[in-house]
């Protein structure tokens, strides 16, 4: 948009200009959501059983309404194809929002659950649960809770490191990478001790794949991610103030340290809920918020939903590429996101204003 406005602008004109500016942001989010819906529809059509784009959505709608027509088609869409797409959408939404919130609260353009080791911690917690069966509670949420508890270790490390004076954004990421190595090593040890039947599962966790998510996992992923993202969005006004600096935040009435730690705990929970069922999908949280910022700026009220929409879109597009590029073999989604995210991380590192060390 034209950023120069007249110095003589009236108050009403300014309010109108601001209103249009906000509307454009909403427009961007709407476009991302529409494209996601279209791509998700296209993804549902792909497979050996031929079902058209609109028919896919009709079958899904009928299924939700409890009105099942063709049983075969219903099974193909609702049992075979849609869970994978739903997992992609939920994981993309959660990871991208987590990345946006981490970047703002830590004032660190390089932060996301992957680069800070949170995903690795969660993955280790999930691996312990799968391999050894040791969980803190029984039942559906046991895997997520295990992953969450272990994701809090890298979270604590980055909170401590970022509280240290002179800790640059790069230092924090390097600390995160160190933690990531430790957890990956421990996960490897567990894998060596694992039952060979569990190896495939654990390996898939390490790479990050939407193919390992079953239909039954979706509700837990969905509930935790929706609650987490809703909390993040509800705090977006405060997160904006925190992103402008701790001193600004405190003098505007916000306890900067408490808010940051609370946000990181929510981020860890969301990351745990996703990583437990998809494995470590890297860089979604890094790339999507930055792309969203290029279009709509850094206001978290809009950045969080825009990142969510872009995250969902990115994961289903990359999964689609993974399923088709070397078909009939499937390339895991984590591999493709790494191909996109790796160069992006290097670009952001080079763009850093401050010296790394």
């Amino acid at each position, binding site marked *: 948009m034209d950023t120069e406005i007249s110095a003589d602008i009236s108050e009403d004109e300014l309010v109108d200009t601001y209103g249009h500016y906000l509307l454009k942001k909403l427009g961007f989010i709407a476009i991302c959501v529409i494209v996601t819906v279209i791509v998700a529809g296209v993804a549902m059509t792909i497979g050996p059983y031929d079902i058209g784009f609109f028919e896919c959505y009709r079958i899904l709608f009928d299924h939700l309404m409890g009105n099942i027509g063709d049983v075969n088609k219903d099974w193909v869409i609702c049992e075979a194809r849609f869970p994978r797409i739903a997992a992609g959408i939920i994981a993309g939404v959660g990871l991208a929002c987590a990345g946006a919130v981490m970047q703002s609260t830590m004032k660190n353009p390089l932060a996301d659950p992957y680069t800070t080791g949170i995903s690795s911690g969660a993955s280790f917690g999930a691996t312990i649960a799968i391999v050894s069966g040791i969980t803190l509670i029984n039942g559906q949420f046991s895997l997520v809770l295990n992953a969450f508890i272990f994701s809090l270790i890298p979270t604590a490390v980055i909170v401590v490191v970022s509280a240290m004076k002179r800790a640059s954004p790069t230092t924090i990421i390097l600390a995160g990478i160190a933690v990531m190595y430790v957890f990956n090593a421990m996960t490897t040890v567990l894998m060596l001790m694992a039952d060979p039947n569990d190896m495939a599962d654990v390996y898939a966790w390490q790479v990050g794949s939407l193919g390992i998510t079953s239909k039954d996992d979706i509700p837990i992923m969905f509930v935790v991610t929706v609650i987490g993202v809703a909390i993040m969005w509800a705090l977006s006004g405060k997160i904006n*103030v925190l992103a402008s600096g701790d001193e600004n935040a405190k003098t505007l009435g916000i306890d900067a340290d408490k808010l940051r730690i609370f946000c990181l705990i929510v981020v860890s929970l969301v990351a745990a809920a996703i990583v437990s069922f998809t494995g470590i999908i890297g860089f979604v949280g890094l790339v999507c918020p930055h792309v969203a910022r290029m279009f709509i700026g850094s206001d978290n009220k809009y950045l969080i939903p825009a990142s969510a929409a872009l995250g969902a879109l990115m994961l289903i597009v990359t999964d689609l590429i993974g399923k088709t590029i070397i078909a009939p073999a499937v390339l895991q989604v984590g591999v493709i996101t790494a191909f996109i995210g790796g160069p992006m991380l290097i670009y952001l590192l080079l763009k850093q204003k401050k010296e790394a060390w």
Partner: protein
Amino acid sequence: MEIDIKDMGFQYNEEAPVLHHIDLDLNEKGLICIIGPNGVGKSTLIKCINKLHKPTSGTVLIDGKSVNDYKLKDLAKVMGYVPASANDTFSMTVLDTILMGRHPHSKVKATREDLHIVYEVMKELNIMHLAMRNFDELSAGQHQKVAIARGLAQEPELLILDEPTSNLDIRHQIKVTELLYNLAHEGKMTVLMISHDLNVAARYADKIIVMSTPGVIYDVGHPNDVITEEMIRYVYGMNCEVVYSHDRPHIILDTAISDEEMIKLHKDEKYVDKDA
């Protein structure tokens, strides 16, 4: 608002005390300037007043209540702060940045009244044309004006500013200081600012707080009483002539005194680290 500082001290660590036995009453409205050379703890003093730092000894009372007992949100409703430098890692538009000043008062969404207040301060500071520009695209001087605008949008009873005009050209320095002076004299808020420009402080301040090494208050009073050749020599180590213009003291600087002379001048200072 009444601020009563009693025997306050602050140190970052045991070896480096910054402020020593500060006693200060700030009970009147107006424009109050804190002056003093680099490193005497001016910024630390204001950060002890607005709870960014916790004094290591003594107390800071705001309207009779210790600043430590205030919730940050309650303090933010009555006390604003404009820091010396701006963070622009993830900047937003100028309008959004100034709207942040309404945070202590506002609900979830910016109201029409919030936008009205922001409109008025942007007009006042002559930055309306920047409203939709991104904060990180601005010059250092424009950053400073936006930060001041945000402080004004907060509508506090006391606005604290850390060298608010250091990046502004002479004309804008005077215009911004006049704006702060007028706000203080219209009774809208008390303004407490750190200033390195002694002549601007001498001309506009209702009260000047002079700080000196090693973190003590040297003098407090009306500019006509505290701006003296002797004070400039002792505190800043500068020879000068003080003349009067607009009934206010005006400093014409001469030569800097030698380091040896400076040490001799301060040899009787109670808290000076003699090994330094």
